[in-house]
Protein backbone atom coordinates (compact mmCIF):
# COMPACT_ATOMS: atom_id res chain seq x y z
CA UNK A 1 0.00 0.00 0.00
CA UNK A 2 1.06 3.56 -0.48
CA UNK A 3 2.42 4.82 2.84
CA UNK A 4 -0.09 7.06 4.53
CA UNK A 5 2.50 9.71 5.15
CA UNK A 6 1.14 12.43 2.97
CA UNK A 7 -0.75 14.36 5.54
CA UNK A 8 -4.41 15.12 5.62
CA UNK A 9 -5.92 14.84 2.17
CA UNK A 10 -2.69 13.34 0.96
CA UNK A 11 -1.60 16.64 -0.59
CA UNK A 12 1.75 16.28 -2.26
CA UNK A 13 2.28 19.78 -3.51
CA UNK A 14 2.39 18.79 -7.13
CA UNK A 15 1.72 21.56 -9.57
CA UNK A 16 -1.99 21.81 -9.79
CA UNK A 17 -2.69 18.19 -8.97
CA UNK A 18 -4.70 17.68 -5.86
CA UNK A 19 -4.31 14.30 -4.31
CA UNK A 20 -7.11 13.49 -1.95
CA UNK A 21 -7.38 10.72 0.55
CA UNK A 22 -5.04 9.26 3.09
CA UNK A 23 -2.89 7.45 0.59
CA UNK A 24 -3.08 9.13 -2.73
CA UNK A 25 -6.58 8.02 -3.59
CA UNK A 26 -9.05 10.50 -4.92
CA UNK A 27 -12.40 9.34 -3.74
CA UNK A 28 -15.14 9.33 -6.30
CA UNK A 29 -17.05 12.54 -6.73
CA UNK A 30 -20.26 13.29 -4.97
CA UNK A 31 -23.85 12.85 -6.02
CA UNK A 32 -24.29 11.67 -9.59
CA UNK A 33 -28.04 11.66 -9.32
CA UNK A 34 -29.11 12.52 -12.82
CA UNK A 35 -31.42 15.44 -12.07
CA UNK A 36 -28.65 17.11 -10.08
CA UNK A 37 -26.39 16.87 -13.09
CA UNK A 38 -28.86 18.02 -15.65
CA UNK A 39 -29.27 21.67 -14.80
CA UNK A 40 -27.67 22.52 -18.08
CA UNK A 41 -28.50 19.47 -20.11
CA UNK A 42 -28.27 20.45 -23.70
CA UNK A 43 -30.11 18.89 -26.57
CA UNK A 44 -27.59 16.88 -28.53
CA UNK A 45 -27.79 16.32 -32.23
CA UNK A 46 -26.15 13.86 -34.56
CA UNK A 47 -22.70 14.55 -35.82
CA UNK A 48 -19.06 13.56 -35.93
CA UNK A 49 -16.64 13.26 -33.09
CA UNK A 50 -14.14 15.95 -32.34
CA UNK A 51 -10.79 14.91 -33.72
CA UNK A 52 -7.35 15.09 -32.16
CA UNK A 53 -6.06 18.60 -32.26
CA UNK A 54 -2.69 20.12 -31.53
CA UNK A 55 -1.38 18.37 -28.46
CA UNK A 56 0.80 20.92 -26.73
CA UNK A 57 -1.50 23.69 -25.63
CA UNK A 58 -0.71 25.21 -22.27
CA UNK A 59 -3.33 25.11 -19.56
CA UNK A 60 -3.89 27.24 -16.53
CA UNK A 61 -4.34 25.94 -13.02
CA UNK A 62 -7.30 23.66 -13.22
CA UNK A 63 -10.07 22.82 -10.82
CA UNK A 64 -10.04 19.58 -8.94
CA UNK A 65 -12.87 19.95 -6.52
CA UNK A 66 -11.42 21.81 -3.55
CA UNK A 67 -13.02 24.90 -2.09
CA UNK A 68 -10.91 27.28 -4.15
CA UNK A 69 -11.70 25.55 -7.44
CA UNK A 70 -14.52 26.81 -9.61
CA UNK A 71 -17.50 24.54 -10.09
CA UNK A 72 -17.49 22.76 -13.41
CA UNK A 73 -20.94 22.40 -14.94
CA UNK A 74 -21.57 19.62 -17.45
CA UNK A 75 -22.84 20.58 -20.90
CA UNK A 76 -23.97 17.53 -22.82
CA UNK A 77 -22.72 17.92 -26.37
CA UNK A 78 -22.66 15.68 -29.41
CA UNK A 79 -19.51 15.01 -31.34
CA UNK A 80 -20.60 17.61 -33.89
CA UNK A 81 -21.21 20.17 -31.15
CA UNK A 82 -17.80 19.51 -29.67
CA UNK A 83 -16.10 19.68 -33.05
CA UNK A 84 -17.81 22.95 -33.85
CA UNK A 85 -16.93 24.37 -30.45
CA UNK A 86 -13.30 23.33 -30.84
CA UNK A 87 -13.09 24.87 -34.32
CA UNK A 88 -14.67 28.11 -33.18
CA UNK A 89 -12.39 28.45 -30.17
CA UNK A 90 -9.27 27.52 -32.13
CA UNK A 91 -10.10 30.05 -34.83
CA UNK A 92 -10.60 32.76 -32.23
CA UNK A 93 -7.26 31.96 -30.62
CA UNK A 94 -5.53 31.96 -34.00
CA UNK A 95 -6.96 35.36 -34.81
CA UNK A 96 -5.04 36.88 -31.88
CA UNK A 97 -7.89 39.28 -31.22
CA UNK A 98 -8.87 37.65 -27.94
CA UNK A 99 -7.95 39.27 -24.65
CA UNK A 100 -5.03 37.37 -23.02
CA UNK A 101 -7.09 36.41 -19.99
CA UNK A 102 -9.91 35.14 -22.15
CA UNK A 103 -7.35 33.28 -24.26
CA UNK A 104 -6.24 31.31 -21.22
CA UNK A 105 -9.84 30.33 -20.52
CA UNK A 106 -10.36 29.36 -24.13
CA UNK A 107 -7.25 27.19 -24.04
CA UNK A 108 -8.79 25.48 -21.05
CA UNK A 109 -11.99 24.92 -23.02
CA UNK A 110 -9.99 23.18 -25.74
CA UNK A 111 -8.29 21.10 -23.07
CA UNK A 112 -11.64 20.17 -21.55
CA UNK A 113 -12.94 18.98 -24.90
CA UNK A 114 -10.17 16.40 -24.95
CA UNK A 115 -10.40 15.66 -21.23
CA UNK A 116 -14.12 14.97 -21.66
CA UNK A 117 -13.32 12.27 -24.20
CA UNK A 118 -10.55 10.88 -22.00
CA UNK A 119 -12.84 10.89 -18.97
CA UNK A 120 -15.42 8.90 -20.90
CA UNK A 121 -12.77 6.41 -22.01
CA UNK A 122 -11.58 5.81 -18.45
CA UNK A 123 -14.90 5.98 -16.58
CA UNK A 124 -17.67 5.45 -19.14
CA UNK A 125 -20.44 4.27 -16.83
CA UNK A 126 -21.71 7.63 -15.54
CA UNK A 127 -22.28 9.21 -18.95
CA UNK A 128 -23.60 5.91 -20.28
CA UNK A 129 -26.28 5.88 -17.59
CA UNK A 130 -27.34 9.39 -18.57
CA UNK A 131 -27.44 8.46 -22.25
CA UNK A 132 -29.48 5.38 -21.43
CA UNK A 133 -31.95 7.40 -19.39
CA UNK A 134 -32.30 10.13 -21.98
CA UNK A 135 -32.03 8.10 -25.16
CA UNK A 136 -29.18 10.23 -26.40
CA UNK A 137 -26.69 8.93 -28.93
CA UNK A 138 -23.42 7.29 -27.97
CA UNK A 139 -21.36 10.34 -28.99
CA UNK A 140 -23.00 12.65 -26.44
CA UNK A 141 -20.54 13.52 -23.66
CA UNK A 142 -20.55 15.94 -20.73
CA UNK A 143 -18.14 18.83 -21.35
CA UNK A 144 -17.50 20.38 -17.93
CA UNK A 145 -16.85 24.10 -17.97
CA UNK A 146 -16.35 26.69 -15.28
CA UNK A 147 -18.41 29.88 -15.37
CA UNK A 148 -15.36 31.83 -16.55
CA UNK A 149 -14.66 29.35 -19.34
CA UNK A 150 -18.27 29.40 -20.44
CA UNK A 151 -18.35 33.20 -20.39
CA UNK A 152 -15.23 33.32 -22.56
CA UNK A 153 -16.89 31.05 -25.09
CA UNK A 154 -20.16 32.95 -25.07
CA UNK A 155 -18.25 36.18 -25.63
CA UNK A 156 -17.01 34.94 -28.99
CA UNK A 157 -18.95 36.72 -31.75
CA UNK A 158 -18.22 33.85 -34.12
CA UNK A 159 -20.10 31.31 -32.01
CA UNK A 160 -23.10 30.11 -33.98
CA UNK A 161 -26.44 31.00 -32.37
CA UNK A 162 -27.54 27.38 -32.15
CA UNK A 163 -24.44 26.32 -30.25
CA UNK A 164 -24.56 29.49 -28.18
CA UNK A 165 -28.11 28.66 -27.15
CA UNK A 166 -27.14 25.12 -26.21
CA UNK A 167 -24.20 26.27 -24.10
CA UNK A 168 -26.20 29.03 -22.47
CA UNK A 169 -28.87 26.56 -21.50
CA UNK A 170 -31.55 28.05 -23.68
CA UNK A 171 -32.06 24.80 -25.54
CA UNK A 172 -31.90 22.59 -22.52
CA UNK A 173 -34.30 19.70 -22.37
Amino acid sequence: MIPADRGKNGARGTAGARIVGPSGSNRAGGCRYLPRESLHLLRPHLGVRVGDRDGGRPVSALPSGDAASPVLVPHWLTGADRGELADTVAAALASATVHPVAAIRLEDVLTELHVAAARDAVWPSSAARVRLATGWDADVLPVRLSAAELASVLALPTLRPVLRARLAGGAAR
Partner: protein
Amino acid sequence: MTAPFGRSGLLQRLRGVRIDVADLREVADAVLPGLATGGLRIAVADRRGGAVVVLEEEENRQVVALADLAEDMAEGGVPATTEGMAAALAAWVAHRPVTRDAAQRAGIAVLDWADAGRTALGWVVAVPRGRAAVTWTASGGTDPRTVDRIRAAARGRAAEVPLDLRVEGTVALWSHPRLSLLATAVLGHPERLLAGVAEAGLEMPDMHVVVTPRRPVACAGAGVAARLAGQANEDQVTLPWRDFTTLPWA
Protein backbone atom coordinates in the same frame (compact mmCIF):
# COMPACT_ATOMS: atom_id res chain seq x y z
CA MET B 1 -11.36 -14.27 -5.85
CA THR B 2 -12.88 -11.36 -7.77
CA ALA B 3 -16.63 -11.23 -8.40
CA PRO B 4 -17.15 -13.55 -11.38
CA PHE B 5 -20.84 -12.81 -11.67
CA GLY B 6 -20.62 -9.02 -11.76
CA ARG B 7 -23.12 -6.84 -9.94
CA SER B 8 -26.76 -6.64 -10.77
CA GLY B 9 -28.46 -3.39 -11.60
CA LEU B 10 -31.22 -1.85 -9.53
CA LEU B 11 -33.85 -3.11 -11.95
CA GLN B 12 -32.62 -6.67 -11.62
CA ARG B 13 -32.64 -6.43 -7.82
CA LEU B 14 -36.14 -5.01 -7.84
CA ARG B 15 -37.30 -7.88 -10.00
CA GLY B 16 -36.11 -10.23 -7.28
CA VAL B 17 -34.53 -12.80 -9.60
CA ARG B 18 -33.43 -15.82 -7.56
CA ILE B 19 -31.48 -18.93 -8.39
CA ASP B 20 -32.99 -22.17 -7.12
CA VAL B 21 -30.36 -24.35 -5.45
CA ALA B 22 -31.88 -27.58 -6.80
CA ASP B 23 -31.81 -26.18 -10.33
CA LEU B 24 -28.23 -25.07 -9.86
CA ARG B 25 -27.28 -28.54 -8.58
CA GLU B 26 -28.72 -30.07 -11.73
CA VAL B 27 -26.75 -27.72 -13.95
CA ALA B 28 -23.59 -28.15 -11.87
CA ASP B 29 -23.76 -31.94 -12.18
CA ALA B 30 -23.99 -31.59 -15.94
CA VAL B 31 -21.49 -28.79 -16.52
CA LEU B 32 -18.72 -28.96 -13.93
CA PRO B 33 -17.15 -32.29 -14.98
CA GLY B 34 -16.47 -30.78 -18.39
CA LEU B 35 -14.64 -27.84 -16.86
CA ALA B 36 -12.04 -29.98 -15.10
CA THR B 37 -8.71 -29.82 -16.87
CA GLY B 38 -5.31 -31.35 -16.20
CA GLY B 39 -4.55 -30.60 -12.59
CA LEU B 40 -7.95 -29.09 -11.84
CA ARG B 41 -10.41 -31.43 -10.14
CA ILE B 42 -14.03 -30.40 -9.62
CA ALA B 43 -16.64 -32.33 -7.67
CA VAL B 44 -20.10 -31.74 -6.25
CA ALA B 45 -20.49 -33.40 -2.87
CA ASP B 46 -23.36 -33.74 -0.43
CA ARG B 47 -22.65 -32.50 3.07
CA ARG B 48 -24.85 -32.26 6.13
CA GLY B 49 -25.54 -28.56 5.47
CA GLY B 50 -26.24 -29.08 1.79
CA ALA B 51 -24.35 -29.67 -1.43
CA VAL B 52 -20.90 -28.15 -1.91
CA VAL B 53 -18.60 -27.69 -4.86
CA VAL B 54 -15.00 -28.72 -4.29
CA LEU B 55 -12.24 -27.27 -6.49
CA GLU B 56 -8.79 -28.76 -6.10
CA GLU B 57 -5.75 -27.63 -8.05
CA GLU B 58 -2.19 -28.19 -6.86
CA GLU B 59 -1.84 -26.41 -3.51
CA ASN B 60 -5.29 -24.77 -3.72
CA ARG B 61 -8.47 -26.31 -2.35
CA GLN B 62 -11.77 -24.50 -2.32
CA VAL B 63 -15.07 -25.73 -0.88
CA VAL B 64 -18.13 -23.57 -1.54
CA ALA B 65 -21.73 -24.27 -0.61
CA LEU B 66 -23.98 -24.46 -3.63
CA ALA B 67 -26.50 -22.32 -1.74
CA ASP B 68 -23.90 -19.55 -1.41
CA LEU B 69 -23.11 -19.78 -5.10
CA ALA B 70 -26.81 -19.50 -5.92
CA GLU B 71 -27.09 -16.42 -3.73
CA ASP B 72 -24.04 -14.78 -5.34
CA MET B 73 -25.40 -15.53 -8.79
CA ALA B 74 -28.74 -13.96 -7.95
CA GLU B 75 -26.95 -10.92 -6.55
CA GLY B 76 -24.84 -10.78 -9.70
CA GLY B 77 -27.88 -10.77 -11.95
CA VAL B 78 -27.33 -14.23 -13.44
CA PRO B 79 -30.43 -15.33 -15.41
CA ALA B 80 -32.20 -18.26 -13.74
CA THR B 81 -31.94 -20.37 -16.87
CA THR B 82 -29.87 -23.46 -17.62
CA GLU B 83 -27.70 -21.47 -20.00
CA GLY B 84 -27.32 -18.58 -17.56
CA MET B 85 -26.32 -20.82 -14.68
CA ALA B 86 -23.96 -22.86 -16.87
CA ALA B 87 -22.20 -19.71 -18.06
CA ALA B 88 -21.99 -18.42 -14.49
CA LEU B 89 -20.45 -21.68 -13.27
CA ALA B 90 -17.87 -21.53 -16.05
CA ALA B 91 -17.04 -17.94 -15.09
CA TRP B 92 -16.75 -18.92 -11.46
CA VAL B 93 -14.33 -21.73 -12.26
CA ALA B 94 -12.33 -19.36 -14.49
CA HIS B 95 -11.99 -17.00 -11.53
CA ARG B 96 -10.67 -19.68 -9.17
CA PRO B 97 -7.49 -18.91 -7.24
CA VAL B 98 -4.25 -18.96 -9.16
CA THR B 99 -1.72 -21.64 -8.31
CA ARG B 100 1.88 -20.89 -7.44
CA ASP B 101 3.06 -22.68 -10.55
CA ALA B 102 0.76 -20.67 -12.83
CA ALA B 103 1.93 -17.45 -11.20
CA GLN B 104 5.53 -18.49 -11.80
CA ARG B 105 4.89 -19.40 -15.42
CA ALA B 106 2.57 -16.60 -16.55
CA GLY B 107 2.28 -13.93 -13.85
CA ILE B 108 2.30 -10.26 -14.86
CA ALA B 109 2.86 -7.39 -12.42
CA VAL B 110 -0.09 -4.99 -12.40
CA LEU B 111 -1.68 -2.58 -9.96
CA ASP B 112 -4.83 -3.35 -8.01
CA TRP B 113 -6.58 -1.89 -5.01
CA ALA B 114 -4.59 -2.76 -1.93
CA ASP B 115 -7.45 -2.33 0.51
CA ALA B 116 -11.16 -2.97 0.64
CA GLY B 117 -11.83 0.75 0.88
CA ARG B 118 -10.14 1.36 -2.49
CA THR B 119 -7.91 4.07 -1.08
CA ALA B 120 -4.49 2.70 -2.03
CA LEU B 121 -2.78 0.79 -4.80
CA GLY B 122 -0.29 -2.03 -4.64
CA TRP B 123 1.42 -4.31 -7.11
CA VAL B 124 -0.05 -7.77 -7.60
CA VAL B 125 0.71 -10.74 -9.82
CA ALA B 126 -2.05 -11.34 -12.36
CA VAL B 127 -2.44 -14.41 -14.53
CA PRO B 128 -4.44 -14.26 -17.78
CA ARG B 129 -7.03 -17.00 -17.86
CA GLY B 130 -9.52 -17.00 -20.72
CA ARG B 131 -11.45 -13.75 -20.75
CA ALA B 132 -10.20 -12.65 -17.35
CA ALA B 133 -6.98 -11.97 -15.49
CA VAL B 134 -6.93 -13.41 -11.97
CA THR B 135 -4.60 -12.18 -9.25
CA TRP B 136 -2.37 -14.54 -7.32
CA THR B 137 -2.29 -14.67 -3.54
CA ALA B 138 0.58 -16.53 -1.98
CA SER B 139 -0.71 -19.25 0.28
CA GLY B 140 0.52 -19.21 3.84
CA GLY B 141 3.79 -21.01 4.18
CA THR B 142 5.05 -20.10 0.72
CA ASP B 143 8.80 -19.52 0.90
CA PRO B 144 9.44 -15.74 0.78
CA ARG B 145 12.21 -16.35 -1.74
CA THR B 146 9.71 -18.09 -3.99
CA VAL B 147 7.36 -15.13 -3.65
CA ASP B 148 10.17 -12.75 -4.58
CA ARG B 149 11.08 -14.87 -7.58
CA ILE B 150 7.49 -14.95 -8.81
CA ARG B 151 7.13 -11.20 -8.40
CA ALA B 152 10.41 -10.46 -10.17
CA ALA B 153 9.42 -12.66 -13.09
CA ALA B 154 6.01 -10.97 -13.22
CA ARG B 155 7.63 -7.54 -13.25
CA GLY B 156 9.84 -8.61 -16.14
CA ARG B 157 6.91 -10.06 -18.06
CA ALA B 158 4.95 -6.81 -17.67
CA ALA B 159 7.35 -5.09 -20.06
CA GLU B 160 6.19 -7.36 -22.88
CA VAL B 161 2.43 -7.04 -22.40
CA PRO B 162 0.94 -5.65 -25.62
CA LEU B 163 -0.95 -2.45 -24.83
CA ASP B 164 -2.85 0.10 -26.88
CA LEU B 165 -1.98 3.79 -26.64
CA ARG B 166 -4.66 6.31 -27.54
CA VAL B 167 -4.16 10.07 -27.47
CA GLU B 168 -6.89 12.56 -26.60
CA GLY B 169 -5.34 16.01 -26.94
CA THR B 170 -2.78 16.16 -24.16
CA VAL B 171 -3.94 12.95 -22.49
CA ALA B 172 -2.35 9.57 -23.25
CA LEU B 173 -4.51 6.55 -22.52
CA TRP B 174 -3.02 3.07 -22.11
CA SER B 175 -5.28 0.05 -22.25
CA HIS B 176 -5.15 -3.67 -22.87
CA PRO B 177 -7.25 -4.84 -25.81
CA ARG B 178 -8.78 -7.76 -23.91
CA LEU B 179 -7.88 -7.88 -20.22
CA SER B 180 -8.47 -4.54 -18.57
CA LEU B 181 -6.52 -5.41 -15.42
CA LEU B 182 -3.31 -5.57 -17.45
CA ALA B 183 -3.35 -1.89 -18.49
CA THR B 184 -1.24 -0.87 -15.50
CA ALA B 185 1.57 -3.22 -16.53
CA VAL B 186 3.11 -0.23 -18.31
CA LEU B 187 3.62 1.59 -15.00
CA GLY B 188 6.19 -0.95 -13.84
CA HIS B 189 8.45 0.09 -16.69
CA PRO B 190 8.81 3.88 -16.80
CA GLU B 191 11.07 3.76 -19.83
CA ARG B 192 8.25 2.17 -21.83
CA LEU B 193 5.77 4.68 -20.46
CA LEU B 194 7.95 7.67 -21.34
CA ALA B 195 8.89 6.32 -24.75
CA GLY B 196 5.26 5.72 -25.68
CA VAL B 197 4.21 9.19 -24.62
CA ALA B 198 7.12 10.74 -26.50
CA GLU B 199 6.37 8.72 -29.62
CA ALA B 200 2.81 10.01 -29.45
CA GLY B 201 4.24 13.52 -29.72
CA LEU B 202 3.32 14.58 -26.21
CA GLU B 203 5.59 16.57 -23.91
CA MET B 204 4.85 16.04 -20.23
CA PRO B 205 7.71 17.20 -18.03
CA ASP B 206 5.44 16.90 -14.98
CA MET B 207 3.56 13.80 -16.10
CA HIS B 208 1.01 12.47 -13.65
CA VAL B 209 -0.84 9.21 -14.00
CA VAL B 210 -4.47 8.63 -13.09
CA VAL B 211 -5.21 5.03 -12.17
CA THR B 212 -8.42 3.18 -11.51
CA PRO B 213 -7.56 -0.53 -11.60
CA ARG B 214 -9.26 -2.36 -14.49
CA ARG B 215 -9.74 0.90 -16.38
CA PRO B 216 -7.46 2.56 -18.97
CA VAL B 217 -4.46 4.37 -17.51
CA ALA B 218 -4.43 8.12 -18.19
CA CYS B 219 -1.18 10.13 -18.39
CA ALA B 220 -1.19 13.92 -18.56
CA GLY B 221 0.51 16.99 -17.21
CA ALA B 222 -0.29 17.76 -13.60
CA GLY B 223 -2.95 20.38 -14.36
CA VAL B 224 -4.77 18.30 -16.96
CA ALA B 225 -4.54 15.19 -14.77
CA ALA B 226 -6.11 17.17 -11.92
CA ARG B 227 -8.93 18.29 -14.19
CA LEU B 228 -9.49 14.73 -15.36
CA ALA B 229 -9.36 13.17 -11.91
CA GLY B 230 -11.20 15.97 -10.16
CA GLN B 231 -14.37 15.21 -12.04
CA ALA B 232 -14.08 11.42 -11.86
CA ASN B 233 -17.10 9.50 -10.70
CA GLU B 234 -15.10 6.50 -9.56
CA ASP B 235 -12.29 6.00 -7.07
CA GLN B 236 -8.87 6.63 -8.54
CA VAL B 237 -5.32 7.43 -7.57
CA THR B 238 -3.31 10.24 -9.17
CA LEU B 239 0.46 10.25 -8.69
CA PRO B 240 3.57 11.50 -10.48
CA TRP B 241 4.81 8.76 -12.81
CA ARG B 242 7.96 8.15 -10.78
CA ASP B 243 5.97 7.13 -7.72
CA PHE B 244 4.44 4.03 -9.27
CA THR B 245 7.59 1.95 -9.45
CA THR B 246 8.14 2.37 -5.75
CA LEU B 247 4.67 1.27 -4.68
CA PRO B 248 4.84 -1.86 -2.54
CA TRP B 249 3.38 -5.23 -3.32
CA ALA B 250 -0.13 -5.61 -2.01
